[in-house]
């Protein structure tokens, strides 16, 4: 239970309006910041807000509000809150809600609804938002009476944060906000008869897992998002250091296990490193911890890790055997399960298996663009690796979706959890800037870097204005290649090089920054990157850096969608392509 906020007067037993009760409940749930946009049906709630110790961030679009709440939740581990009016306000939240749903982010969305007497009449700004959001929320509620508000909001927070977390929407009619009732609040444990968020693993499953681990010669551990959610980083490190099992991370699992740990192989999947995917295909045991075998991770399921027995540690029983058939399912909290397994697994040196992986690693590292000279060009991978070096790997990075997202995953090494926020499941362009703003509110002491493409940035760039109004600082690195880069890459590889609707004319991003009274910097040479990063770090307000990178670069290696995980497209080695540098070792690392 959250301790009562000292700034909150005790008004239990008093007659309050529904609007006041909304804030009473939110503050009691520990809410200090919320992100939103007012409108007709939520006006009573906004009017009551000034009586309460909650900071409201006015966004420029409700999608921004839901992404900010999401970013806040990802960065803090707390429930993020957004608020919007009925109709278009509520529907504008949906992209952000779906983003949070696919990545299991705890979020509570409060929406206003037309007065209960008008529901179903197609009243002005009426949308059936509970109906609309059934498939993209963990649960949702329609509240039509003031006395339902407090228990419903309490329940919403409980559902959002417990078990496998997710977004919960509470739709509150205008008359429920306006009417009054006696305010009551209970701190008792919530019991929902049909809701069981916590599963404990069965002893026989643990025993089977221990036997498989004991028998394995070539085991590999998958670190997914669940490790971060269950705060299991230390448990994984302990487990890995005892067993010497190498670790492969999912995109959302990056940072859950330190990137620079000697047992960390890197990211797996479509744009994972060759040696990681090859190790998976060669493994005889996979221990999948807190991940869900997404299609971007497995490639062709028929040929996926055929030689490996599979242990799946996962909190959500509906994920077991969904995509990949597993030998031993363990339903439970990842951290607790690993701690349970730890005393029963053996110390092991595994030098044969680890040497083998090192060998395949050596083969592919020579193709790594990071190790190649720039030949006067500005490569996105170099930019991101430089940002990593000059921020000393300590920044909280929020990425958008596309090529830059994959380069970030490959070249920014995350050693700490909750320092990489990215839309993994839904792949929502436009996520980065608003989520970065939300993250900054959650971690004001962190240096927040928003890394996005020229396409994604323009989807939500209006939120720069929110940065200016709130006076908060994020550093925005636009990886500007003049294309919708990832789609262009697919067109190059799979659609005969026909660049349909991917060339992108952008405004002058430096001037856009300046129009918001913010700082804008343009970078066209590798030699200018360091200076730009340092200026951005030292500048007080939000800084936008327009990195004019090589236009037709591609993310390598790549497993085409649905292809075998071991059939990867490698960075071309032919030295005759002028954008493909010859093999030499560059100055980095």
């Amino acid at each position, binding site marked *: 239970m959250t301790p009562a906020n000292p700034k909150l007067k005790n008004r239990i037993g008093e007659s309050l309006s529904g609007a006041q009760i909304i804030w009473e409940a939110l503050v009691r749930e520990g809410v200090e910041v919320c992100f939103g946009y007012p409108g007709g049906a939520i006006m009573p709630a906004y009017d009551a807000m000034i009586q309460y110790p909650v900071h409201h961030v006015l966004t420029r679009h409700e999608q921004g509000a839901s992404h900010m709440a999401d970013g806040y939740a990802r960065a803090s581990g707390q429930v993020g809150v957004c608020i919007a009016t009925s109709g278009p306000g509520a529907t504008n939240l949906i992209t952000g809600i779906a983003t949070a749903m696919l990545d299991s982010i705890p979020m509570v969305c409060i929406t206003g609804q037309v007065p209960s007497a008008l529901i179903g009449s197609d009243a002005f700004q009426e949308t059936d938002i509970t109906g609309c959001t059934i498939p993209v929320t963990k649960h949702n509620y329609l509240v039509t009476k003031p006395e339902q508000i407090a228990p419903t909001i309490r329940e919403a927070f409980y559902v959002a944060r417990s078990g496998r977390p997710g977004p919960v929407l509470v739709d509150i009619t205008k008359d429920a906000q306006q009417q009054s009732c006696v305010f009551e609040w209970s701190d008792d444990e919530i019991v929902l008869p049909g809701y069981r968020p916590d599963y404990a693993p069965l002893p026989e499953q643990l025993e089977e897992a221990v036997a498989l681990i004991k028998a394995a010669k070539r085991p590999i551990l998958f670190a997914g998002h669940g490790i971060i959610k269950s705060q299991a980083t230390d448990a994984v490190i302990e487990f890995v250091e005892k067993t010497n099992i190498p670790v492969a991370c999912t995109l959302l699992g990056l940072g859950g296990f330190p990137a620079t740990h000697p047992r960390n192989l890197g990211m797996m999947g479509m744009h994972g490193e060759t040696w990681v995917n090859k190790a998976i295909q060669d493994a005889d045991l996979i221990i999948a911890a807190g991940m869900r075998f997404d299609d971007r991770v497995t490639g062709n399921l028929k040929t996926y890790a055929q030689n490996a027995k599979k242990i799946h540690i996962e909190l959500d*029983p509906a994920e077991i*055997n969904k995509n990949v058939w597993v030998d031993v399912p363990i339903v439970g909290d990842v951290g607790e399960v690993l701690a349970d397994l730890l005393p029963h697994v053996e110390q092991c040196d595994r030098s044969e298996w680890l040497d083998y992986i090192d060998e395949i690693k050596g083969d592919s590292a020579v193709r790594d663009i990071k190790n190649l000279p720039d030949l006067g060009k500005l490569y996105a991978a170099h930019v991101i690796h430089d940002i990593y070096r000059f921020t000393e790997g300590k920044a909280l990075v929020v990425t958008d979706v596309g090529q830059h997202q994959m380069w970030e995953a490959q070249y920014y090494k995350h050693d700490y959890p909750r320092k990489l926020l990215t839309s993994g499941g839904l792949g929502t362009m436009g996520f980065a800037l608003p989520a970065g703003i939300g993250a900054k509110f959650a971690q004001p002491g962190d240096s927040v870097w928003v890394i996005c493409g020229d396409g994604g940035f323009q989807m939500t760039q209006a939120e720069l204005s929110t940065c200016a109004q709130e006076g908060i600082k994020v550093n925005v690195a636009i990886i500007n290649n003049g294309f919708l880069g990832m789609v262009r890459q697919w067109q190059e590889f799979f659609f005969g090089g026909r660049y349909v609707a991917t060339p992108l004319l952008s405004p002058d991003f430096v001037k856009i920054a300046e129009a918001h009274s913010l700082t804008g910097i343009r970078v066209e040479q590798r030699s200018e990157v360091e200076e730009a990063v340092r200026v951005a770090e030292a500048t007080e307000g939000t800084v936008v850096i327009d990195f004019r990178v090589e236009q037709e670069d591609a993310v390598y290696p790549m497993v085409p969608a649905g292809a075998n995980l071991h059939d990867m497209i490698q960075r071309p080695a032919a030295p005759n392509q002028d954008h493909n540098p010859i093999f030499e070792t560059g100055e980095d690392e």
Partner: protein
Amino acid sequence: MTRSVKRTFAVFVEDKPGVLNRVASLFRRRSYNIDSLNVGTTHEPGVSRMTIVCDADTDTARRIEANLYKMVNVLWVDDITHKQTIDRVLALIKVNCDRDQRDEVLKICEVFRARAIDMSPDRITIEITGARDKVEGLVSVLKPFGILELVQTGTVAMTRGVEKHDLAHPTVPASRNDAA
């Protein structure tokens, strides 16, 4: 993977607005094909019972169950496909039937243990309750007379004998008054 068979689930849900929509939406969204879905109140206040019949292999059935359990309003799910059950469908069938045909039609009803419940000079309405194949059998025999109208429920099902669905399951509090 096993092959797809008709599965029957008994699903106990909170009797609240929109719950049927949520359950149906889950089946639609995950592409589980519903054969029939029947819902009604139970003797327990605030609890409704659904009987859902759908095509699924063992693994899909397990995931349907797991996904149903994830819903906040779902209290208890029982896959009763391979249990001893009583399954019933109710159908009302209106057929062409003149004076000369009445005896024959009524005899057919007797064989199928159906009942004639309405009659006019040239037609007769029959009510039948039973397992789906029995109802289908009657319908095929009546077809030659000319079926004018037919309405039937989805399957409702209950396990036989000692196994009770009395909501004594530990996840369902004995007193439901404070669990709204």
